[in-house]
């Protein structure tokens, strides 16, 4: 290979570049990013960076010198616009093009929005560093924040805003926060936790519309009641950033469809991170994972595949969420669980297990980190459900 192009200036990208150079790739590497920034770390954007204002240098995953030392040709602030997999060319916005021998797609995901309902008033999403800067400036103590969507981002923003002295309401369509993924019992635990810190959590409630009003914005709920908001944040999920690949002919289906080794459907192309949909043999499931650790490990794995590797990507997924003093860590898969068993729960900690097809597939630990390592081994080993669940 003469040249590898990495599209998406991301966490997956820096680990892919590390792997390429560590394993002897001496050709050219070009890195394309839609944002003007060097790759930066996203988890702090809903937590300390949101509270104190982002330290743009401190958030960088690698220093500017790191890219120079590895001979990375940077194309930042210019999104990829199109791919021609036959000619092996990526076209950038503005018309420049880059030909490649190997292409690594790591364009991540983008925040979903409410659509027309959110046109009125100060409605924000949180995905990028620039989003974080804009939102930080608007978190004013004493003001009222309405968060639409009680997923992880929504709950983390709620906790940060509450810690800063805002009054906060969270509106969620499902019967409990996080319940679509983690089940109602675990969701209710998080609801209790948020409420104990003074966050108003309104579940089983839709948002009908948002209107501009004299005292800020009026959020009209499905049950007919209204909430006044100085600021509205939506956390209603993310979708893979694949618009630029439409019409390219490579297979897309809620992400870039890849084989077990992270190869996309055209020669010389691999994918890593949020944008990737691949078949995971351990869980016997085609999945797409929007998680930090997955981006690190897939970036590296996809690079190895580009260099001729053929190993399947079978890492056990891992993610975390920090809200107030709650440190939640999850290993494995919660999706499509047939059984969810809360092993133990009190006001400050919880352990819950997720099973399917007679084996343990996932474990959630709140303020109980040591348990994670034990359960990850059980998940990797395909340990029977009845052997891990206490009677």
């Amino acid at each position, binding site marked *: 290979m003469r040249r590898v192009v990495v599209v998406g200036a991301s966490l997956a990208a820096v*680990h892919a570049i590390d792997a390429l150079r560590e394993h002897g790739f001496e050709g050219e590497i070009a890195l394309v990013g839609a944002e003007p920034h060097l790759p930066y770390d996203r*988890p702090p954007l809903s937590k300390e960076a949101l509270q104190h204002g982002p330290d743009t240098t401190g958030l960088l995953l690698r220093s500017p010198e790191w890219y120079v030392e590895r001979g990375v040709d940077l194309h930042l602030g210019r999104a990829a616009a199109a791919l021609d997999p036959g000619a092996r060319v990526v076209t950038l916005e503005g018309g420049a093009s880059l030909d490649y021998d190997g292409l690594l797609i790591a364009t991540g995901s983008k925040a979903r929005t409410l659509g027309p309902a959110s046109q009125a008033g100060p409605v924000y999403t949180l995905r990028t560093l620039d989003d974080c800067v804009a939102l930080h400036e608007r978190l004013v103590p004493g003001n009222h924040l309405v968060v639409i969507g009680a997923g992880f981002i929504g709950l983390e923003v709620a906790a940060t805003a509450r810690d800063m002295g805002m009054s906060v309401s969270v509106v969620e369509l499902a019967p409990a926060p996080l319940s679509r993924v983690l089940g109602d019992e675990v969701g209710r635990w998080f609801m209790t936790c948020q409420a104990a810190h003074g966050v108003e959590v309104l579940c089983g409630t839709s948002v009908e519309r948002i209107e501009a009003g004299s005292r800020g914005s009026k959020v009209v709920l499905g049950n007919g009641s209204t909430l006044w908001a100085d600021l509205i944040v939506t956390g209603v999920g993310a979708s893979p950033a694949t618009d630029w690949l439409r019409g390219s002919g490579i297979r897309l289906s809620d992400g870039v469809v890849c084989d077990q080794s992270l190869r996309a459907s055209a020669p010389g192309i691999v994918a890593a991170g949020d944008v990737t949909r691949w078949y995971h043999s351990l869980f016997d499931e085609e999945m797409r994972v929007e998680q*930090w*650790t997955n981006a*690190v*490990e897939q970036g*590296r794995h996809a690079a190895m595949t580009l260099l001729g590797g053929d190993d399947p990507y079978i890492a056990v997924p*891992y993610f*975390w969420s*920090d809200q107030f003093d709650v*440190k939640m*860590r999850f*290993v494995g898969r919660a999706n499509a669980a047939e059984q969810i068993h809360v092993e133990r729960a009190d006001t400050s900690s919880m352990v819950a297990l997720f099973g399917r097809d007679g084996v343990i597939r996932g474990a959630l*630990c709140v*303020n*109980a*980190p*040591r348990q*994670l*390592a034990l359960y*990850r081994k059980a998940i990797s080993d395909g340990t029977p459900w009845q052997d891990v669940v206490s009677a």
Partner: protein
Amino acid sequence: MKVIIDVAACQGYACCMMEAPSVFDLNEDEGKVILLQENPSEDLRTQVDTAARTCPAKAIRLENG
């Protein structure tokens, strides 16, 4: 190889313990890393490399290559 941990930076993600359980443990009460071996043998390099790379708090550093 020498392993250096930053206990103050550690946030109890437990990734190190999952990747290299013979090198890292966690204090269950404080949720902080405990280094079991400061100079692990070379056959643990892949595990320790992965532990360092996947630490969200960047609390693990390796010296001597």
